[in-house]
Each structure stands twice: as structure tokens, then as C-alpha cells.
């Protein structure tokens, strides 16, 4: 396995005086797909935001080596831009060429590129936010609940994209409730639970299957 691209060590985070995350540690290496599961309110999305630099931990270390891209739990599509323009924002800000058609076709949203976010379904918006993240140059991809709102063919397309990314040497961290999809793609799954939330288990190899939790 390659070098470590995502390193989280002893992260602690509180909101309004209540500790949400306690001593969270995990790592993702180049070419790996790592899963993160846990019930609602265990701070999974907070951890994603800490990795993206949106939130700061009170203590501990969270570092991403190289460039990264994120699919947040919320779509954050700009309602005043068409989907194709939302997808190409990262490239536009860097003066780079952007062709969203390839990624859009993989996710089945090529027919909606000229629509505004409010004119399409929630599933299409979800796929658009995934496509936007894929159009960023990255070494590490972090996906927060990427399967939510997707139909089965789209889930399979996304799983295949995730595998391709890992095979091409990217590091992928997937946060999801959808265990079946997660277990089918991840080589290691960190299980968060409790209040404050801690890593209770790390599932590997044959431990990744139905009944593992």
C-alpha cells in the first residue's frame, strides 16, 4: 500500500459545550477506499468538514497530503448557475478548460446540464454535486453520504467510479449509512458510535459483510 494521504490523530470537537468527537484517529493511504459509518449525530460530517478545513478541531491533528475534493452531505449548488457552470466552477476559477460531459454521462445527468439546480430533482442535484467534486484535480476524495437519493444504477456507476479512482492511486474516504455499498467498495471501515463519538471498531477483510455491525 502507498503513502498515507489522510491522517487523523486524536481529534476532539465540541459544539455548544458538548463533546461530539473524542480521540478520533484514522488514516487513508494512496489507492485505498476507506469507509466511515455511524449513527446520526456521531459527528461524521463534522469530521469531513474538519478534513476540508471548514471546521477546526479543539485538539488533535487532521491533515490531507496533496490536493483534495469533497462531496458534502449538502449539495451546495449555486441556484443562479446552470448545472454545467456549477460543475466547472473549480476549473473556471483556475482558468482551466472544463468539459463536464464525460463525468455527467457516467452519472446520467448529461441531459440536465443546461438546467438550473431548482429545475431538477434531488437525485440529479446529488449527482451534480458528485460530478462537481470529480471535476476538481485531487489526490484525495472525501464523500459524505454520496449514495443518498441515488437510484440503483447510479449507485453502481458511483461505486465503479470510486474503484477506478482507487486503482489510479487516489485515496478515497466514504462516509455512508448505506452499508451494502460501503462494504462492497471499502477495504477498511471505521465504525463510530457513542456520545461523544469514538472509533469503536475497524472492520477489515472478511469482517466487511452483512451482520458486521
Amino acid at each position, binding site marked *: 500500500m502507498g503513502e498515507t494521504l489522510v491522517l487523523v490523530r486524536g481529534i476532539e470537537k465540541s459544539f455548544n459545550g458538548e463533546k461530539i468527537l473524542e480521540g478520533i484517529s484514522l488514516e487513508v493511504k494512496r489507492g485505498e477506499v476507506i469507509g466511515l459509518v455511524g449513527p446520526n449525530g456521531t459527528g461524521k460530517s463534522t469530521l469531513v468538514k474538519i478534513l476540508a478545513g471548514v471546521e477546526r478541531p479543539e485538539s488533535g491533528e487532521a491533515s490531507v497530503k496533496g490536493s483534495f475534493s469533497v462531496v*458534502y452531505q449538502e449539495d*451546495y449548488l449555486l441556484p443562479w448557475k446552470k448545472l454545467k457552470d456549477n460543475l466547472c466552477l473549480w476549473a473556471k*476559477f483556475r482558468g482551466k478548460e472544463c468539459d463536464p460531459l464525460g463525468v455527467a454521462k457516467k452519472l446520467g445527468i448529461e441531459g440536465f446540464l443546461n438546467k*438550473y439546480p431548482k429545475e431538477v430533482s434531488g437525485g440529479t442535484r446529488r449527482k451534480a454535486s458528485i460530478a462537481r467534486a470529480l471535476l*476538481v484535480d485531487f489526490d484525495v476524495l472525501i464523500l459524505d453520504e454520496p449514495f443518498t437519493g441515488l437510484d440503483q444504477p447510479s449507485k453502481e456507476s458511483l461505486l465503479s467510479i470510486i474503484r477506478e479512482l482507487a486503482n489510479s492511486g487516489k485515496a478515497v474516504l466514504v462516509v455512508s449509512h448505506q452499508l451494502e455499498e460501503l462494504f462492497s467498495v471499502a477495504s477498511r471501515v471505521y465504525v463510530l458510535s457513542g456520545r461523544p463519538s469514538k472509533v469503536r471498531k475497524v472492520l477489515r477483510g472478511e469482517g466487511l459483510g452483512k451482520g458486521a455491525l
Partner: protein
Amino acid sequence: MKRGWFYLLMFALVSWIALARLYPALVPGIAETLRFYPEAGGSLVLKSTLLTLYHSLVGFLVAFFLVGVSILLALYSAEFKAFLSSLNVFIQSVSVLVWTIIFIMIFGVTSSIAPILVTAMASFPAMLSAGISSSEKLLERYRPLIALLKPSRLQLYVHFIVPGTLPEMVSAGRVALGIALRISVVAEAFGSAGGLGYQLVYSYDLGVKAGVFAWALLLVVLMIALDQLILGRLEEWVRRWYW
């Protein structure tokens, strides 16, 4: 909505007719008021209306431009943002009458600059407050996306703040333009640059009651038409951009 306007029109007509009958020496009748327009001359009516519109719109646009520049500069400097907050309170605390007199003293009674600047001063605070608060909410809302895309400050302004604050800015602009129209006639009334405000006070000075009512009526109709036909529709159109 349309029924509301119908009721308002009925209420205004009935009140006007009743007041004209009760106090004929003070309140002219509807027919007498309407006769004033051809007597004054179509060109004077048109010129005065256009002049008031010009003062209001240019003043409003000056304020709109200043708000846009202020929000951009506030992105670059927290110190400037703090200054803006104090400036806004200061401008709001100075009476329109004071601005009017000061600008007339500086630019002269016949200059159009005074009513334009007074209008700008009156509409600036409402739009600045809306613009600043809306841009703060927007930046907080899209913080994760901004962390991902890492735009420059200028890109942030052009691609996020300008379109993202537009719905609230148009709503604030609707209020501000209403203020602008009302305030510009006050500034016109003090100077001699012309416009509806000037004609209204001129009619009052000459004791032409029908003139006072006719110019006031024109002003009200102008404001309602502008609000309903342009600003209301514009507000509806940009609402789809609301996040």
C-alpha cells in the same frame, strides 16, 4: 392583490369626494384637479415627471453602485467593514433636511446634483444593511463550497456575492427606490431645479390647490406604477436565485 387595489381606489375616491364636499375651500374636487394637467401643459407635466424620475433613479443608482463597491472592499478589509458599519449609522442619523440644505448650499439651488445626492444618501443605508447582512449569510452558508473551490476574493464577489445577494438587494432596492422617490421631491421642493416636488411647492406658494393635489396625485401614481410594473416583477424574477 388586484382586489386590494380596487378597494384602495374606491376608498381613496370616496374619501376625496367626501372631503371635497365637506371642505370645498381646502380640498379641490377630482374634476377640478384633473383639469389642472391640460391647463399646466402636457410638456410641463411630462418634463417635471421625468425630472423627478431622473433625480430618483440616478440617486438610487449612485447608492446601488456605492453599496456594491462597499461590499467588495469589505471583503478585502475587516477594518473597512467596521468603518462601513459606523458610516451607515452616521448617515442614518443625519436628517434628510440637513443633507438637502447642505447639498443645496454646496451645489446651488438650480443644480440637479443636490436632489440626486440627497436621494442617494437616503437610499444608501437600507441597501447597505441588506447587502452586508445578505453577503455574510451567504458566505456562511457556502463556507464548505468556498473551502473546496478556493476562489480569489474577486471571484468570490463576482460568482457568489453579486448574484447571491441580488434577491435581497432587489427587495431592499424596492424599498430604497420608494424612499428615493419620496425624498427626491423633498430635495426638489427646497431647490429650484424643477421636478414634481418643486412644482408641488410652487403651486402651494401660489395658492393653487388643484395644482398641489394634481402634482401629489401624479407622484403617487408614478410610485405605484414603478413599484408594481417594474420593481415587483423584478423581485419576483430574482427570487428563483434565492438560496
